[in-house]
């Protein structure tokens, strides 16, 4: 299929090459989640002892949360790449060539999938080194990485659409920083929702970041709740699809503003 082939050309011909030619970017992308894991692991170590928290070990609780948080942090910046492409003329070159707009979105999502998978694997390995346990085994870990990729897709689509619509670096930075931290803290990524105020728990039920964190945690816990995981993953897939369509359609809006 033409769209898939073009997406592959941009993904391998451009994004992967750009990634490995920027070792600093790779270094930061790997360092950041390690800092989160060490910092939050130490900061909240004792909360697991609060009655009703549920899990005995905080690092076991935290590791899936950091996987999800890292996924949305990285993907919330993808729109920046389009803004840069507008300024360097790269976007105009793509848009005046017979390149499918869906292929542009697809290439970006493929790139996001790769970085999310690598980052997740490293966080999981370090978490395991710090004493986290994954009773769900390989299947559970794979499911955690899978939902991390889905939430990364949803966030990347949002960021891409926003970048194409606002065409402003500052606007995207503002939106990203305003959105990402609250979404993370309005979820069970760091604290069991049984311990937070009711309104936060209520909001979290509609927060895709919480769907991903919950599904990931249930998956690695290995209590066989595949139905729960599946329904969360389904909602996340819908969110990813909707934002991917929005991001693809945003090319047209960008062009209409030219």
């Amino acid at each position, binding site marked *: 299929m033409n769209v898939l082939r073009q997406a592959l050309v941009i993904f391998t*011909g451009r994004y992967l*090459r750009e990634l490995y030619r920027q070792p600093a970017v790779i270094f930061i992308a790997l360092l950041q989640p390690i800092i989160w894991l060490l910092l939050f692991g130490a900061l909240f170590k004792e909360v697991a002892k609060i009655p009703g928290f549920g899990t005995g070990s905080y690092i076991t609780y935290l590791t899936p949360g950091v996987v999800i948080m890292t996924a949305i942090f990285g993907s919330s910046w993808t729109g920046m790449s389009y803004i840069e492409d507008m*300024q360097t*003329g790269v976007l*105009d070159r793509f848009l005046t060539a017979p390149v499918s707009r869906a292929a542009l979105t697809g290439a970006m999502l493929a790139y996001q999938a790769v970085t999310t998978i690598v980052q997740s694997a490293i966080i999981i390995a370090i978490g395991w080194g710090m004493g986290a346990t994954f009773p769900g085994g390989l299947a559970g870990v794979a499911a955690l990485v899978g939902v991390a990729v889905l939430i990364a897709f949803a966030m990347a689509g949002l960021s891409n659409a926003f970048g194409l619509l606002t065409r402003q670096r500052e606007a995207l930075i503002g939106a990203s920083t305003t959105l990402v931290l609250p979404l993370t803290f309005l979820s069970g990524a760091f604290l069991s929702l049984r311990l937070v105020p009711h309104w936060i728990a209520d909001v979290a039920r509609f927060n895709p970041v919480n769907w991903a964190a919950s599904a990931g945690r249930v998956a690695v816990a290995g209590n066989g709740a595949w139905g729960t995981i599946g329904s969360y993953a389904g909602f996340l897939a819908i969110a990813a699809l909707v934002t991917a369509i929005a991001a693809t359609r945003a090319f047209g809006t960008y062009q209409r503003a030219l």
Partner: protein
Amino acid sequence: MTGAVEAEDLRKSYNGGKAPHGGRSPHGGKAANGGKAANGGKAANGAAGSDGVPADRRVHALDGLSFSVAAGSVYALLGPNGAGKTTTVRILTTLSRPDSGRASVAGIDVLAQPGRVRSAIGAVSQHSGAVGLLTGAENLAMQGGLHGLRGKELRRRTSELLDAFGLTEAAHRQAKTYSGGMRRRLDIATVLVHRPTVLFLDEPTTGLDPEGRTDLWAVLTELAAGGTTILVTTHYLEEADQYADQIAIVDRGRIVAEGTSDELKAGLHGDSVLLELDSHDRAEQAEKILIDIPQVAGASVDGSSVRARVADGAHALPAVIGGLEASSVPVRSVTVARPSLDDVYLHHAGRSFRQAEKVTVS
């Protein structure tokens, strides 16, 4: 039936407060045609605008622009910044859409079938378009891949283009290390990968040194000789004069004159008198005096010199010098010359090219 590129009555306006990204902001109120609905029946579309911005706040980037480019020729859209050149190229290359009007490229309707147009054209925007972290060869290969070239065919085409554009040696260096001229050559090579019949270049020589400009024009001239139609925008009079087969002078969103350089100059039927004065102030003073002399059709100041348009240089000279002497404006030197493109611009746009550039920059 028609030319390789056809534009017919293109109109486009922007919300005055919101300039389109990347391009320079179209100039202010002067262009707005007094805000009146000059577009007749299409006024509702053009003037009120889909975003509900009142007509008097909208900037008319294109105000009924039409032209036709013969296949295999080099056609230059010449005009100051903000005249509407970039907007025109954006519409013809399917990036943007006009509020009204029609356009076709290589016989394909731009508005109805943008996808087919994209396969037929190569478009180089003002900004480079090359991915800086990729090498020249990789940029070419990616573009070729997007056009469906693969394997041996892609490799052959890539090395062929690198060779033709003198980039073989730099093929495996990242594009961000290229000089301005090399980058431009890479840009052009990249959009030629699928052998388009029409090539669009928006201000390709801006930012290049004289040598780079000459090289670039040599490339474009050769491409045209090979049958490629080339539409180029420029705000350098000399370039259009020297290299273009046909020149269209664009001012405030319309074509005010069109023809070969010689035709445009011959159309003026007259000479220009170039006067050197002591200072810019003196030059402005002289301009005011000259305009009142019956033999002078127009005058413009550039630095400390004044250019006056007259029907016959030899006959007008005594009146010109006499007029300045009577007002005690000392003249350093006087030259009578055949009309230049600058005179052509002055004649059709009612202001000199440099004045127009200053208006839009400020």
